[in-house]
């Protein structure tokens, strides 16, 4: 074992007795808080019109869209939007080929 690694192991053992390789914290969502508060309009899905093309998932700049496999009425994958962090930019609505997603005005005083 080389000198550097031995020194690091001793240091790590003092900080992290559980013995993880390195006591690292991992980034979690919401470094700027709940960015859903920014929203003036929210994207709402009409599942009957969705064809499960994944384009909204692909183009979402905020990565708040998860595709639920087989959850649509015809067994297609439908987007599930995390409104906690969705900023309501409307990119998903713009790229939707079947207009299954619509921007609806956010009710005032909620959230």
């Amino acid at each position, binding site marked *: 074992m*080389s*000198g*550097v*690694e031995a020194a690091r192991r001793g240091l790590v053992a003092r900080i992290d007795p559980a013995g993880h390789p390195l006591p690292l914290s*991992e*980034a*979690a*969502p*919401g*470094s*700027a*808080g*709940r*960015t859903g508060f*920014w929203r003036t309009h929210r994207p709402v899905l009409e599942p009957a019109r969705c064809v499960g093309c*994944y*384009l909204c998932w*692909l*183009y*979402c*700049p*905020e*990565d*708040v869209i998860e595709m639920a496999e087989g959850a649509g009425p015809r067994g297609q994958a439908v987007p599930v939007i*995390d409104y*906690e*962090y969705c*900023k*309501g*930019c*409307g*990119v998903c*609505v*713009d*790229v939707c080929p079947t207009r299954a997603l619509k*921007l609806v005005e956010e009710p005032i005083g909620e959230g």
Partner: protein
Amino acid sequence: MEALKKPVRTIWDIPRPEQFAPGHNMCQGCAAALIMRMLMKVVGKDAIVVMGTGCVEVTTTPFPYTSWKNPWLHLAFENTAAGASGVEAALKALQRKYGVFKDRYIKVVAIAGDGGTFDIGLQSLSGMMERGHDVMYVVYDNEAYMNTGIQRSGATPLGAWTTTTPVGKRMRGEPRPKKDIIGIALAHRIPYIATANPAYPTDMMEKFRKAYETRGPSLVHVYSPCTPGWRIRNEHTIHVSRLAVQTGMWVQLEIENGKPRVTVKVPKRKPVREYLRIQGRFRHLTEEEIQKIQRMVDEYVEEINRWVGEQAIGPVVEE
């Protein structure tokens, strides 16, 4: 999550796990957020991100929070590439002296905006490319210093309004055309250079993957619409990006070992008017000025076609 190994051809080749956490401070509809998300999907966890000051830097890492699941290093505008070179050299030295990371390939990914690349960081970028460090350099180009309030940079296109190139009696927006960063990189004879666009994500990710796999310096120049700075609607980010390619304002190039190739061919080009009219920063342009920009784009497209040796970008077709 490992770095992507197989080529990205369709949407199904894109990995599902995310390496870039949501809930950051970037504007609604910011393309840079999409670019970073796609980039981190490709490079995976074995990458050290070295980031120059810019929009993405100040919005994703407000102390003490971060959106990055990778090791991340903050650097100033002028020394992004210099810092990346140092990290890469240190990794090499650790491998040689102590044998750490013997079985893993750790890549240094430098990310900077257009201000930190075209203007302030150009000298350190040149040094990095000249010395041949194994660094992947990604520049997200939103065509001005957006984070400090829309000041012009070397990447601002001809005729664009910014706060330092205002529109009035003496000045009609930016008087000079955009700097040719691809030409500068090409002059350093680095192994991989590409231009990418967020409207074509599979193409963009394939370019990121190739740049990641290149041993030696690589540069990916990514077009990144800025909704407040370009005066466009939030939802038009992808629409504007696609129009840039369809009008010939932006050409999807890939230069592997000096051999150029156009990855997204445009058989029928749209007139640039469509691209300019949708953006508030070009609202002041008169018909003559639009024609001047059209002629400039025509010349550029002709030059590209001559260079790649085929009719990659076709003539303008009015609809």
